[in-house]
């Protein structure tokens, strides 16, 4: 600038050639500037701006693209059950996921500051952000597997359930007809004849494969021959099957195994008096019984099918399950962003509150959260924008038959346009809807930018 002024002065009163040169350099500068921005503008124009306009136009035409149908695709969107389902699911995502993530991120950001290994923890939780949705999808397809012998989540659920409810060891066991046991309506088995103290009873069952016998099951033969004391009712529950053939039905043969862990109840006058669990040789006994006639009962819980856990990827739970996988990916992001806001809070305010005797909860509720409100808003808005576009996770985690229960706008748009639907008019309308939904975020960004420029 200074150089040009000097030249102008030296040129004296004849300013015209100087001005011309100035104009020329100015034009040259503009051409250079345009060369700098041109590659970006060409790509943005051809592959972003033009497609937006094209999609808006295309959304007013039918599937073939030849007939103008006005707003029909948009009304169709809210009439077609599949797209309606997608709109509903996206609404669930938008309501649930950002709120959960912001809340969880806030709690973890506050708590992690109290431990010395905060950095390691933050790194661990942030790491899933580096992982593709596809890999995360495969990770959670594995974790959510319905078979408790495959999916870690159901394995955990089943073991917790069994720890509280107990397991039934013999879902397949049953009694032979006419061997003394009759089946109750609830699936239990009862001895028919009245038994009195001093009697013993051998309860034979079949239908258990020898390989399914609990480890440590011992032969029932020795226990079956013991006699009962006068105030005692005893016996064995055994597998009435001799491996390799032979043996007599309804009798405890030498090679026959006891059924350990079977619950047995002693019943008198329709009321359960005592209960016992069989030992490793299948033996049980009730002592100190009053005189009277008793019936023995093998309750139905012995034969209940094993608890199989939760059907995570079934139609009912698939969306919450996928949101769970999404939390795994994004919680670290929310935590780190909120943590940065937390670090910027005025220390004096917090200290003053502590000096005044406020407890941690009061400080959190009355000071930290209100001061963090702007950061929380940014995190929340960011998450809303991202959640609306979720595609890969749903596409990968939801198994084929459940795909339509889990579908969201982005997957539906894909299905309708390319995945067999082949209705590019409706597909374009769904794309435009997606764009309309993020327009508030667009306005927010532009406004924030203009403000920062003043």
């Amino acid at each position, binding site marked *: 600038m200074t150089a040009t002024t000097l030249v102008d002065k030296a040129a004296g009163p004849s300013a015209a050639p100087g001005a011309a040169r100035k104009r020329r350099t100015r034009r040259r500068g503009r051409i250079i500037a345009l060369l700098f*921005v041109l590659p970006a503008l060409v790509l*943005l124009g051809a592959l972003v701006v033009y497609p937006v306009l094209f999609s808006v136009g*295309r959304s007013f035409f039918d599937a073939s693209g030849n007939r103008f149908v006005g707003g029909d695709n948009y009304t169709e969107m809210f009439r077609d059950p599949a797209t309606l389902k997608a709109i509903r699911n996206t609404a669930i995502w938008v309501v649930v996921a950002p709120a959960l993530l912001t809340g969880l991120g806030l709690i973890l950001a506050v708590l*992690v500051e109290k431990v010395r290994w905060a950095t390691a923890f933050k*790194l*661990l939780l942030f790491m899933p*952000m580096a992982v593709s*949705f596809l*890999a995360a999808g495969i990770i959670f397809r594995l974790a959510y597997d319905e078979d408790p012998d495959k999916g870690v989540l159901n*394995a955990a659920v089943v073991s917790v359930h069994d720890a509280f409810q107990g397991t039934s060891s013999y879902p397949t066991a049953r009694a032979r007809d006419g061997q003394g046991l009759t089946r109750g309506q609830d699936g239990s088995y009862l001895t028919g004849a009245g038994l009195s103290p001093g009697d013993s009873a051998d309860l034979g069952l079949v239908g258990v494969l020898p390989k399914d016998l609990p480890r440590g099951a011992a032969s029932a033969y020795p226990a079956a021959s013991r006699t009962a004391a006068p105030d005692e009712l005893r016996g064995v529950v055994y597998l009435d099957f001799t491996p390799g053939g032979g043996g007599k039905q309804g009798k405890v043969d030498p090679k026959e195994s006891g059924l350990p862990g079977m619950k047995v109840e002693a019943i008198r006058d329709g009321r359960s008096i005592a209960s016992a669990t069989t030992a490793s040789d299948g033996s049980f006994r009730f002592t100190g019984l009053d005189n009277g006639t008793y019936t023995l009962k093998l309750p139905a819980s012995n034969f209940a099918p094993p608890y199989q856990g939760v059907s995570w990827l079934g139609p009912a739970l698939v969306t919450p399950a996928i949101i769970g996988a999404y939390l795994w990916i994004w919680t670290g992001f929310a935590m780190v962003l909120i943590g940065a806001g937390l670090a910027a809070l005025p220390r004096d305010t917090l200290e003053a509150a502590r000096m005044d005797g406020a407890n941690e909860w009061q400080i959190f509720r009355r000071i930290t959260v209100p001061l963090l409100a702007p950061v929380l808003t940014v995190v929340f808005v960011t998450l809303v924008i991202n959640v609306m576009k979720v595609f890969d996770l749903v596409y990968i985690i939801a198994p084929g038959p459940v795909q339509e229960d889990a579908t969201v706008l982005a997957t539906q748009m894909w299905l309708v346009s390319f995945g067999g639907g082949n209705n590019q008019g409706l597909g374009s309308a769904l794309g435009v809807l997606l764009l309309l939904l993020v327009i508030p975020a667009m306005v927010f960004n532009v406004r924030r930018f203009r403000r920062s420029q003043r």
Partner: protein
Amino acid sequence: MNPATNPAMNTVRRGLGNGLVQAFLVVIGLVWLTPLAGLFVSSMRSAQDTAKGGWWTALASPGQLSFDNYSALLKNAGMTQAFWNTVLISVPTTALVVGIAALAGYAFAWLDFPGREPIFLLVVALLVVPVQIGLLPVAKLFGQLGLFGTIPGVVLFHVAYGLPFAVFLLRNYFAEIPKEMLEAARMDGGSEWRIFTRLVLPVGRPAIASLAIFQFLWVWNDMLVALLFADSSSQPLTVELQSQIRQFGSNIDVLAPGAFLSLIVPVVVFFAFQRHFVQGVMAGSVK
């Protein structure tokens, strides 16, 4: 005595509270680690072992674990091709986005041309445009240009949709360069190109690094764009793997190591460039 004023009591209580906090965070940490550990252990078990029991049973019998699945994967021509395609897509995309956006960012920050302000506002508005809206029209366009199903097509699409954020980030960073620095360089007779390569790029290195890492991961991890624009010879790892998802149960010995292979590169990048990575993701999250 008021417990709040008793320092010993307070210490005890804080210690107890801290213990609870630690325990809670350890549990959360384990919950976060378990799915990943599950994938890794699963990736090292044979199909037969997987059919017999969950991956956690392998912890008791480590003899089940081997790298056989990985060596099988490396012999699988489709997989290795897909891995190279992933590299061939993500590296050029990253270089192009950074280069084109740096040029434009400099022009928007410091050069004078007609329509500079409104055009830049348009770029800011384009930040949140969903990729989905571009799929159909660009597919038609690429079909006419012969780019459909090719790696350059996938790259171009990614570059275009990476640009708004990249231009936005770099323009804002370059705008912070002190005016005196640029004017001094101009007075020394430096051309704009020289100023750009010798001054702006070196000064902008931190922002460029964050952008490059973010962009690289974004493209490396993409499935949606490649699902449409790549064909079977140009598809990246993500698309190759998703094509096997349908038979999920019987394919775990292929899917698990494949997924691990696809995630190990970004995770290494993450640990190697933690700071840049976190900054890049934070800044890029507005997309």
